[in-house]
């Protein structure tokens, strides 16, 4: 190949080749990275449909593990317990966390701010195992114990694992507060002043202006709390009394006894649940964007 004045010198050509090769390797790396994250989950789901007790040798498609899961009263009860605990603790944590976020964002400096900050952020840093034993020791010493309260609620008999709910609220408050505070920080404070200027009392300002505008943050915080509560194993494991299982606690017990495609089926169910929540969060965010509520 003869070099014309416009073609690159050999060294530039080499550089170009190296550049293209480098880019290609870079893409390959990115692909491998995501494969690392998704392949194990994918394989887990695939073998939940395996027509064999094995989770490593494919023996044809079946739904029998899902049937077995649906017929397993213990799993179904654990599923109900998980959802119940998540709903109740999310509701409480969302209200408390939102109020705390408003205080921290609204009033920059006030006496005791440092103590409030530490108390509110420490549960995020402390690992769940430490929080779990702390709660266990507390329930034991205080005499609250790890009881299940039997409650009648509109004629429905409910088993309320009070210690588990208390624990879940305790670690969720902080996460809700952080998410809501981030949203509030973006909010234009003069909107609240404008409402007050237009004769709205602080109470009505909150309901008519502040709450609708911070709603995306509140929903985001609630969704995070709900997910964390559904996913929690360690704290529930320590704070639930004998005979009370949430789905993760039940799954942990099953794993201890051995690997079966039934666990894969339950895991797939939990994965599906998480995906549903993420999709909901995304849809909510997109809907907001289209209606252009909020300032952006």
């Amino acid at each position, binding site marked *: 190949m003869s070099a014309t004045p416009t073609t690159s010198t050999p060294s530039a050509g080499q*550089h170009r080749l190296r550049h293209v090769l480098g880019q290609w390797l870079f893409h390959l790396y990115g692909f491998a990275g995501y494969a690392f994250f998704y392949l194990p989950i994918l394989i887990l789901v695939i073998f939940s449909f395996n027509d064999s007790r094995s989770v490593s040798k494919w023996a044809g498609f079946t739904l029998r593990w899902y049937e077995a899961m649906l017929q397993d009263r213990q799993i179904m009860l654990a599923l109900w317990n998980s959802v119940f605990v998540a709903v109740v603790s999310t509701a409480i944590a969302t209200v408390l966390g939102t*109020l705390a976020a408003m205080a921290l964002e609204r009033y920059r400096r006030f006496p005791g701010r440092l103590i409030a900050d530490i108390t509110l952020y420490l549960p995020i840093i402390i690992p769940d*195992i*430490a929080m779990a*034993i702390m709660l266990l020791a507390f329930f034991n010493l205080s005499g609250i114990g790890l009881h299940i309260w039997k409650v009648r609620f509109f004629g429905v008999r409910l088993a309320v694992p009070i210690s588990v709910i208390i624990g879940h609220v305790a670690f969720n408050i902080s996460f809700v507060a952080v998410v809501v505070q981030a949203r509030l920080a973006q909010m234009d404070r003069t909107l609240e002043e404008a409402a007050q200027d237009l004769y709205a009392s602080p109470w009505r300002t909150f309901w008519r202006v502040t709450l609708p505008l911070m709603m995306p943050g509140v929903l985001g915080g609630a969704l995070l709390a709900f*997910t964390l509560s559904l996913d929690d194993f360690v704290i529930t494991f320590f704070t639930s009394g004998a005979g009370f299982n949430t789905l993760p606690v039940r799954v942990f017990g099953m794993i201890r006894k051995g690997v079966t495609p039934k666990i894969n089926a339950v895991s797939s169910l939990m994965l599906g649940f998480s995906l549903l929540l993420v999709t909901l969060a995304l849809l909510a965010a997109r809907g907001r964007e289209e209606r252009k509520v909020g300032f952006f």
Partner: protein
Amino acid sequence: MNELLQRKPGLRAWLLLAPSFLWLLIFFIIPLGIIVVYSFLERDLYGGVVWKWTLENYRRVFDPLYFKTFLYSLWIAFLTAFFSLLFGYPLAYYIATRPEKTRNALVLALMIPFWTNFLVRTYAWLTLLRTNTGLINVWLQEWGIIDHPLPLFGNTFAITLGLVYGWMPDMILPIYAALEQLDRSLLEAAEDLYASGWQVFRRVIWPLSLPGVIAGTMLVFIPSLGAFVTPAILGGGKRLMIGNVITNQFLGAHDWPFGSALSVLMMAVMLLATLIYFRTGGEEARRGGLG
């Protein structure tokens, strides 16, 4: 009342804070105090505590039997942070250099594993790594690549892999956030000048992404040190971390004072790490701001 509130904003702040603060005071701060107090008490034979002050629990922590576990946990946490950084940094860089739409999709794709259950994610690796029936060993043997199963399970490798898998998004996201703020033209210039690419990386990109690296390292190191589920499932009962020992003291051996002492020590190490993080993090931010 109204006038008092109007005049004292601090009072209004505390009125809003009161419910969550009280909740956390009773169900978090006081329990924390109980653990600290327990760690200085003696156990009784039936799993309770005797109200007699002692330092015996802290002496036992340094008993080689337990202290080895403690050092092993630190080692695992270090390995996890190290490999998360080693593999996570290029991935964060990869995401940050994509076009905006791809970038957002990739970040979302990273968040989805974060939203899925940690236990399920650990279990997924259990089905892959088990020595005789794990997918990887089964397939490798079927394809004739190996004769005997590889030791993939019940060891440091398995635990570290499980933790890296679980916590690497926490490393990638802060680094990505730091890299994304970099001037795009700077990155393009760096790509363009690949001859001195390494220099550009070392002198420009790495220092500017350091706050993200430090934050990510903390976010991976702390939960790895306190891991319980991963060693319990992937350690195969052979390799224990400090989280497992604490669990045993509370649920098995019924020695709460000793379990409390172990927890207090673990939290002290984490606090120390956090303090170091804030100090170096602050310094980096200052230097970054000046540079």
